[in-house]
């Protein structure tokens, strides 16, 4: 269905080709998963199928790509629109019209289908994707999962032979991701659509794939095969395959069901429970890093948070979970003073780490007399001088950043300068830190990034690390991250986990809002699940995540009823001496 013949793509001003020596065929009616670390040209490969590379992006394409017999060199993207449907990462960038029904019809209108066919297909697509109740809704008012489904529906309605998807479930909560994947599988089974999909969150998709196309690294030749063949070679693997590799199962299991059938011997070999996580407890009288009591936040007329209680203590990592729109981002916003509570209170802990003066100092210690004058509170009553609590929405930003730091969903929002060095200098000035503090942090988190790089040219993981360094320059004892693993591959995620563990061990309190159950299992001491603005579950990670299938990580499902959550835990238990260091954080 899709034929690549000796394809390589070189962008202008690039030293090396972004894609090289691709020569393979994706057969009709298969769900083909594109796998590989960040920056190996997955998006470029997808772009060549829809013709956007090189017609739209520029660059040079060598070789030939044919889709359903049409050569993309001679057919522009618009002339392939009836054969190839493509959906990108951001559904909002995909929409042309303003309501759901018009959006579903837009592609068919462009292709020129007769009105009666369009009418029927719009109705069918509404049903197929479960959008019937939303048909008149403006697109801007839909949730992320709904928008992604509309985007998929809008290309499906044209009945393309090939569907190209770039990270379709990355921004979605586990439930919405299941919905989207179920639809894709139905398409492949019922309509014979060929689906080519790139996705970082392999644990969600690999069991649906008929074939896996692996791009192992820049310049390395691609490998196409069944998931069982390819996964052992892949540098990126879902936890289920990692566990299989650890236990020496061959072929590697790809679904939880496969793995469970073979897991009985492994369950017997493991001890009854993993070692208790080593975690420093704060001094008994120490104030919490964040104290939220009966918080109600109203946006428009809707109560986004309702009488919510949450206490986060130093040395603690809390994962906030819940579906899109459950109020996670709003809670983080309230903690940073972006929303004024409609009821209840938010109190942040003192602006210094409980780890003592060695780990971080109060702002005054660092910034001389001038800064101390500037930091003097206006009212004299609610001012913090390092040792006091703060009410976020009443604390001026230049003091607030010593209490709390938030890395937003799009780390770029925090970055204004046009080079990494300028960004670091600005961060030092903002935080009143000694010149070079931020650069030192960047050097630790991002070892090989030159000073002159533009933040927009960094990869998703590098941007996150830079934003994190900028935030950490002010040494806030409470660190918030909103959906940090969106767009990160497993390697970048592993680095993030290591950094965050280290921060928690030095006394930071960390709150993660995330849909990534594997991340929560790996990192969090406590999981809080929100729904409709209420806390519906709050407890130690093993208890909360094993309690509900939607939030359980793969290892927990495989080794149930044992309380195991992650592969490193199992590895440490199997080889206590060799790998103690790796499992120590748990």
């Amino acid at each position, binding site marked *: 269905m899709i034929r690549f013949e000796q394809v390589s793509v070189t962008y202008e001003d690039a030293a090396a080709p972004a894609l090289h020596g691709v020569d393979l065929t994706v057969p009709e009616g298969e769900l083909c998963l594109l796998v590989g670390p960040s920056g190996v040209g997955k998006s470029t490969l997808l772009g060549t199928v829809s013709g956007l590379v090189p017609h739209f992006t520029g660059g040079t394409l060598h070789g030939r790509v044919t889709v359903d017999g049409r050569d993309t060199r001679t057919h522009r993207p618009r002339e392939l629109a009836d054969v190839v449907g493509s959906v990108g990462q951001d559904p909002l960038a995909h929409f042309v019209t303003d309501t759901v029904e018009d959006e579903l019809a837009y592609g068919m209108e462009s*292709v020129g289908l007769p009105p009666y066919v369009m009418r029927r297909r719009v109705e069918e697509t509404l049903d197929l994707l479960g959008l019937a109740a939303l048909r008149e809704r403006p697109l801007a008012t839909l949730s992320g999962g709904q928008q992604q489904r509309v985007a998929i529906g809008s290309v499906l309605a044209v009945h393309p032979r090939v569907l190209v998807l770039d990270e379709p479930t990355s921004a979605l909560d586990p439930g919405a991701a299941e919905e989207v994947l179920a639809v894709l599988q139905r398409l492949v089974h019922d309509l014979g659509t060929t689906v080519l999909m790139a996705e970082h969150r392999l644990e969600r998709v690999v069991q649906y794939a008929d074939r896996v196309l692996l791009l192992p690294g820049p310049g390395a030749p691609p490998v196409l095969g069944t998931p069982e063949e390819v996964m052992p070679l892949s540098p990126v693997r879902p936890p289920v395959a990692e566990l299989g590799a650890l236990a020496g199962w061959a072929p590697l299991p790809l679904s939880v069901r496969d793995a469970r059938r073979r897991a009985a011997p492994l369950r017997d070999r493991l001890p009854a429970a993993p070692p208790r996580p080593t975690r420093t407890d704060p001094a008994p009288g120490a104030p919490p890093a964040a104290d939220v009591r009966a918080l109600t936040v109203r946006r428009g007329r809707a109560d986004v948070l309702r009488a919510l209680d949450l206490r986060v203590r130093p040395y603690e990592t809390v994962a906030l979970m819940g579906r899109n729109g459950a109020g996670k981002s709003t809670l983080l916003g309230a903690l940073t003073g972006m929303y004024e509570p409609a009821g209840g209170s938010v109190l942040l802990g003192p602006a210094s780490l409980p780890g003592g003066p060695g780990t971080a100092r109060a702002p005054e210690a660092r910034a001389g007399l001038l800064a101390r004058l500037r930091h003097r509170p206006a009212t004299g009553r609610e001012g913090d001088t390092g040792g006091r609590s703060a009410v976020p929405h009443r604390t001026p930003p230049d003091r607030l950043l010593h209490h709390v730091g938030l890395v937003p969903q799009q780390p770029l929002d925090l970055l204004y300068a046009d080079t990494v060095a300028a960004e670091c200098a600005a961060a030092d000035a903002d935080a009143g830190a000694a010149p070079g503090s931020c650069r030192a942090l960047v050097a630790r988190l991002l070892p090989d990034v030159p000073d002159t790089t533009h933040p927009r040219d960094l990869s998703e993981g590098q941007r996150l690390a830079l934003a994190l360094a900028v935030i950490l320059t002010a040494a806030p004892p409470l660190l918030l991250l909103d959906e940090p693993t969106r767009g990160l591959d497993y390697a970048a995620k592993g680095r993030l986990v290591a950094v965050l563990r280290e921060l928690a061990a030095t006394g930071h309190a960390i709150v993660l809002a995330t849909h990534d159950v594997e991340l929560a299992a790996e990192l969090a001491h406590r999981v809080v699940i929100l729904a409709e603005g209420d806390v519906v579950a709050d407890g130690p990670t093993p208890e909360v995540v094993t309690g509900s299938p939607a939030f359980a990580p793969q290892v927990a499902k495989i080794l149930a009823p044992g309380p195991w959550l992650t592969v490193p835990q199992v590895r440490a238990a199997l080889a206590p001496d060799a790998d103690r260091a790796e499992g120590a954080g748990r």
Partner: protein
Amino acid sequence: MTARAPDAPTAPRALSRLRAPEAARGNALHAGAWWLWALGLATAASRTTNPLLLALLVTVAGYVVAARRTDAPWAHSYVAFLKLGLLVLLIRLVFAFFLGSPIPGTHVLVTLPELPLPDWAQGVRVGGRVTAEGMLFAAYDGLKLATLLVCVGAANALASPARLLKSLPGALYEVGVAVVVAMTFAPHLVADVRRLRAARRLRGRADRGVAALLQVGLPVLEGALERSVAVAAAMDARGYGRTAHVPAPVRHATSALVLGGLLGVCVGTYALLTADGAAYGTPLLAAGLAAALAGLRLGGRRSVRSRHRPDRWGVRAWLVAGSGAAVAAATVWADGRWPEALRPATVPLAAPELPLWPAASLLLGLLPAFVAPLPPAPTGPEPERGAERDAEPERRPEPPPYRRPHRSEESP
């Protein structure tokens, strides 16, 4: 108000049958009808400077918008246009105050120091006497402009521009889509600015004030540029701009018709405006228009587009468009009959009077508030699921000021 039901068996049943139905996609009023109605009101506004009549027009438009607008994001534009109108009025007054007014007047409010200007700037005055007559004239004039804007705002709130687009001829559709996509850009930009200003707070910088706005300018523009490239790519991949093969003679005929037609329109208009060209001006204009329209129709062959559920032009659309036309016609007629009532004199100063018949005729514009389909009532305070993604910038409260005291929070 729908008083035309005499032959029905029983009045209540007939009334309920005539009552406006609940709006849905299938019976949606043609967007063109709303725009014609609004243009009718605007025409009326352009024929009068009587502030009482203008205020009545704004009220009529506002009532219809309040009665028939939906919950969609574009439906909030009426208030935005109202504010824009006030701004225009204000600017007009400020200019009249500082730059003087050609209206002679005797009631001097204040005398500003006059800026001496060189000879070549004759006729321009900066400063000098400010008269009550001049200011009043400027106020009337500004109010007229503001009312025109409010009429456009009403059309915008009642019919999304994207729906009007569906009724454009095929040859113009692609251009129209580009315009509409460009228009959705502004709300995105506003949302971006808000998000980035909020992010400034996280960096420890002030999140309010002009400086904050200026410093996020560059990142916002970069983001906007990236987004427009992404939208363009998506549109291309979805078949925007697909063309059908058209034989060369037809293509050439199209070009000839459009160019010739436009030339005819230009010459015809020129002839009509000159003193002695009226005889051949009108036919030339008509022929030019006909040729241009034929060219557009022929040009539509190049487009392969089809339409999904285009709006139908039904009885209610006739009534809505007709009410606008009636208001315009009545005002034009009244302008000939009582010019002094529609354009109250400012020299000498006098309070404007409300002319009864012209005012009554403006009330015809209220008809859509009773005949247009009724949008479904908003379904209560449903939690905004999309809110986390900055979906509805209109409803978002501003980030709260940190100085405002709050009862229950005390720093220990």
